[in-house]
């Protein structure tokens, strides 16, 4: 597979305005993106998603590491690199509310050096694709948020770049519009052969749309996996113990000390194990008080749980997932 984007040991710190202390927003992030792939960049608030995306766009100069786009350094050869990418960074705030839908598209195409005449066909195609054709002469300020967001994505697709970066494209959308945007994203990859990086908190976006996900937390990559593999991996490690007796306090403490990701209900222990041996450790703890184990089940997990576990589990998981 052809590598389109290569992020290597990316580091970015900001100076806090008041205290002047340095905040490490991105701390040694590395990942690659391949042609035709749709990659989900996932992480909680403040994880460093936006910083990573803006560094790829060359809008931020990294303190360390590098980003290459089709071989061009997005910092040192910014304008060459930018030739291959377009981005929606702040959704509906990325377009001019005082211009109409079509005027926006013509203006942004013009700034990339494309003439008004030349772009008309593409504009019509995109307006139809995004179902905005009837709105083409309306001011953006009069559109719904969903339409504005779709227009912002349409604007990013105008120059027909290899890569499109989307920072939180479903932010602030209702369920229905969010669904529409998700299926449009899938179609963009399928029909237009684009490579897409999408950052999001929105699990369905990753689960339905993305081929692969890079999860970052605290400025570090905690997982870089195919979405289905990640779920499978966690499924094989997730167990549900049904027990006959109540656990003693010592047992509870022992279990919680060993396993950061555990949920203990009355007669059930839902736990994610990190290695094979863990199964024996937990059985030892149960046996120590002659607790009856009635049943051990593999549990199914959805992406949301996987995400929560990775992010909550912090550093321990970095190693286990990476060694998979």
């Amino acid at each position, binding site marked *: 597979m052809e590598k389109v984007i290569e992020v290597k040991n990316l580091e970015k710190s*900001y*100076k806090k305005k008041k205290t002047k202390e340095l905040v490490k927003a991105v701390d040694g992030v590395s990942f690659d993106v391949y042609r035709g792939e749709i990659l989900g960049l996932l992480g909680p608030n403040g994880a460093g998603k936006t910083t990573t995306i803006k560094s790829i766009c060359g809008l931020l100069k990294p303190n360390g590491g590098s980003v290459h786009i089709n071989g061009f350094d997005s910092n040192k050869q910014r304008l060459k690199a930018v030739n291959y990418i377009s*981005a929606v960074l*702040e959704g509906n705030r*990325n377009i001019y509310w*005082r211009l109409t839908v079509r005027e926006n598209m013509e203006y942004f195409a*013009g*700034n990339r050096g494309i003439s008004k005449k030349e772009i008309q066909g593409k504009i019509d195609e995109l307006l139809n694709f995004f179902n905005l054709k009837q709105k083409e002469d309306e001011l953006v300020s009069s559109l719904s948020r969903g339409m504005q967001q779709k227009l912002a994505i349409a604007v990013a697709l105008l120059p027909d770049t290899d890569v499109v970066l989307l920072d939180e494209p479903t932010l602030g959308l209702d369920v229905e519009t969010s669904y529409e945007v998700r299926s449009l994203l899938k179609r963009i990859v399928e029909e237009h052969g684009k490579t897409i990086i999408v950052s999001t908190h929105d699990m369905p976006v990753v689960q339905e749309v993305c081929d692969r996900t890079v999860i970052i937390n605290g400025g570090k990559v905690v997982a870089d996996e195919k979405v289905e593999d990640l779920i499978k991996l966690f499924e094989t490690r997730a167990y549900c113990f049904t027990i006959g007796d109540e656990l003693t306090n010592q047992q509870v403490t022992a279990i919680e000390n060993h396993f950061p990701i555990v949920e203990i209900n009355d007669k059930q222990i839902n736990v994610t194990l990190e290695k094979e041996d863990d199964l024996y450790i937990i059985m030892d703890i149960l046996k120590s008080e002659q607790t009856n184990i009635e049943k051990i089940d593999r549990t199914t997990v959805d992406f949301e749980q996987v995400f929560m576990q990775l992010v909550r589990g912090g550093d321990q998981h970095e190693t286990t997932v990476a060694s998979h």
Partner: protein
Amino acid sequence: MKQLWHLINANLRKEYIELKRYFPNTITMILQFYFIFLAMLLGIHVIGDPQQVETNVQYVIVNYVIWFFMLTILQSLGFVILFEAQRGTLEQLFMTPLGMWRVLFGRIISNLLIFGILVTVLLVLSMLTAGEWLVFRIDVVLPVFLITTIGVIGVGYMLSGLAIIFKQIQSVLNVLQFILMGLAFVPLSVAPYLVFAPFVKGIDMIRLVMIHSYTWNDFTALDYSALILNSIFYLVFGIFIYLKSERFAMERGLLSQY
């Protein structure tokens, strides 16, 4: 080159669309400008016309036109950048592979063209209404004016760069009118060192042509070199400051309102 042409075109269109769409604003600006002109021109009538008065009024009109023209262009550049940084469109402009400095070039040129035409038309119109004509050699004024404009482009870049970095630029933009007023109204004969300040040499020469009927031969080679060097210096210096500011903004993450 062709790409740059399309870019300038797009920015001209946007400027024009916005002037048309916000017609009440536009018309207020036009009327205000027209009436101030008219008042000044009529001043010649009212006061009567001993040679001295006429010269003074002409002097004020020429300075006022130039001042108004530069102020409009420079302020709108700065304010638009501030506004776009807050709105979120600034970063989108930075995504063009032609480079933001070219987008700015497109904007400065559009501003110069649109306001240049506007000011010229209004000037002629108010002269028609007042029946009072400023007589000058356009073939001398125009080249001098165009060379002066090159310096304006440079200062436009400078202000754009500062507007990206300093969120407090708003107050600077407000003070700008007084700085420009000083540059536009004070003749070089009074403050010779101002020859190093932007525009001043050009404005001084335009004044001499319009009021004292200077022609090509009345200026020395030194005048012309000072004019050209001043403009080129401020263009290069302005772009330099802009590119430095851009780099600084990317290091600090200042392109969007955080």
